[in-house]
């Protein structure tokens, strides 16, 4: 089987994000980059599937800057076979990234049997790329996947929707799977895995190589700013048992009279 995984490199979740000088994007100079957390579930599921289907290869694809290749190196160290990097700025929109991923997959000369990705990237939080790539490759997609089974060319997928309800999908043939937390427990890269990863093939392409140009931009962002700070709230001391009932009554009273939310 030809298994592909689309990964993105994003700022660590603990990062403090600040707008850049002219408000066109964020300040990226001092960011610690990691593989998008949801993509770890995608890599893990690809490796589990490879282990179960002899003769499979796992190819990891990423569109983004070369200043750091943490995401691809992590995926290779976890056990992926090869990687493709489409070099681009880190502020491409979902449409451009999807078109680049599609171009890279098509250029690889392997027809994709299954493609995994995270359900969303935690940088722009658009939740568009898996569905767009699937549409561009004329494949079905199932998103927010928390359960995966594959046998004899048939895939059964559990998608989580509102209220923890699960939709069970059956798919024959190629499918794009957008993974959610809970699907599996991603492995850590072992030391031998990290050493081996250094010798694995990493192909580098330009946006032009995969058929993407400036005309493909669909979103224009401006005015990046920090969200407005709230004025300081009211704080009540209620560690002493004697004070608790009074404090709670006062807060509930304020929720009705002042905040008007109850």
């Amino acid at each position, binding site marked *: 089987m030809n298994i592909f995984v689309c990964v993105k490199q994003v700022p660590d*979740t603990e990062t*403090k*994000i*600040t707008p850049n000088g002219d408000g066109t994007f*964020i300040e990226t100079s001092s960011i610690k980059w990691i593989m998008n957390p949801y993509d770890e579930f995608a890599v893990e599921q690809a490796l589990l599937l490879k282990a179960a289907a002899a003769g499979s290869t796992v190819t990891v694809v990423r569109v983004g800057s070369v200043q750091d290749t943490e995401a691809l190196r992590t995926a290779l160290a976890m056990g992926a076979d090869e990687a493709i990097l489409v070099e681009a700025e880190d502020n491409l*929109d*979902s*449409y451009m990234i999807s078109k680049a991923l599609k171009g890279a997959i098509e250029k690889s000369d392997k027809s994709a049997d299954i493609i995994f990705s995270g359900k969303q990237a*935690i*940088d*722009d*939080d*658009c939740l*568009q790329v*898996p*569905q*767009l790539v*699937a*549409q*561009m490759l004329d494949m*079905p997609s199932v*998103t*927010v996947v*928390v359960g995966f089974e594959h046998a004899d060319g048939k895939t059964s997928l559990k998608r989580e*929707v*509102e*209220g*923890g309800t*699960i*939709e*069970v*999908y059956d*798919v024959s*043939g190629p499918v794009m799977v957008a993974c959610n*937390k809970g699907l599996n427990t991603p492995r850590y890269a072992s030391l031998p895995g990290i050493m081996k990863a250094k010798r694995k093939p990493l192909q580098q392409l330009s946006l032009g190589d995969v058929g993407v140009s400036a005309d493909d931009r*669909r*979103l*224009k*962002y401006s*005015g*990046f*700013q920090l*969200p407005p700070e709230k004025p*300081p*709230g009211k*704080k*009540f*001391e*209620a*560690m002493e048992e004697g004070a*608790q*009932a009074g*404090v*709670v*009554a006062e*807060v509930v009273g304020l*929720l009705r009279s002042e*905040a008007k*939310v*109850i």
Partner: protein
Amino acid sequence: MSKILVFTETTADNVKSVTIEILGRLQGQEVDVACVGDLPADGQKALAENGAANIHKLNGSGLEKYSPEGYAKALKNLIDKGGYDYVMAGSTSIGKDLFPRLAGMLDAGMASEVTNFTMDGGNFAGTRPLFAGKVLAKVEIEGPKPHFVTVRPNALGMPESATAGAGNVQEESADIGEIKAAIREIVKGASEKVDLTEANIIISGGRAMKNEENFKILNECADVIGATVGASRAAVDSGFAPHAMQVGQTGKTVAPSLYIACGISGAIQHLAGMRTSKVIVAINTDPDAPIFTKADYGIVGDLFQIVPLLTEEFKKLLGK
């Protein structure tokens, strides 16, 4: 003025309220609404009262159950006929899954999960949070029309006044052809409550809940005030609650009217997921917990003592 199609989902007896929030913001534009399957009578009335000119009800073989391919094909047929400038929906489970595919079919741009927007001169300009709400940015859409937009539930608020539309109901039969990924089965979640992403009130527990069993004191309070129960990543990673309940950067981003944080210290990735809540109450034994910097009302105290008192006080207030 622009011509806009709003896709709506229905509840048991109405349309989802995010649809009415969107219609409120589209006053003065030419607005049609589309739904798949039956539309409850109260929902149809609400759509007309809030400005819908035409209400398209899509039906056809294969549309009995949701599928992104089937719904996208049915809506694309309607969009091809209608000449729309914009197509909008709530950023719900279906909206998030469906709209990128639909936009992709038309090579069109899409702004996901905006929290505010204007339609000056018929042109869309939105605001959306990025990096889980750590920053906000203005977003505009370029390229071929129609342009696609999804809107975060509860973010715009319900309109205070409305100009009614004709509300003409059009039955459309859609031929959607083959579906490659179809739902075989739906397993209902344990929760009958409204989802965190659409909840008006949320009460969440953190690591200080100590175990899964203790969440029952939050459930009891939630039942009194009609809240949905959430959890921090620390509580989820400790196995006290399922991931479906997680609020934060790697969980759900929420925007309720009232958010009550119990025993949650306020890690940056949790704050990112709930900071747009209108009113925040925090209960924590640590007076220096970061959550207090975001709280409108902070109670320095032990949640195991405070929450039951809170439940009793809400009961008194609400006459329960």
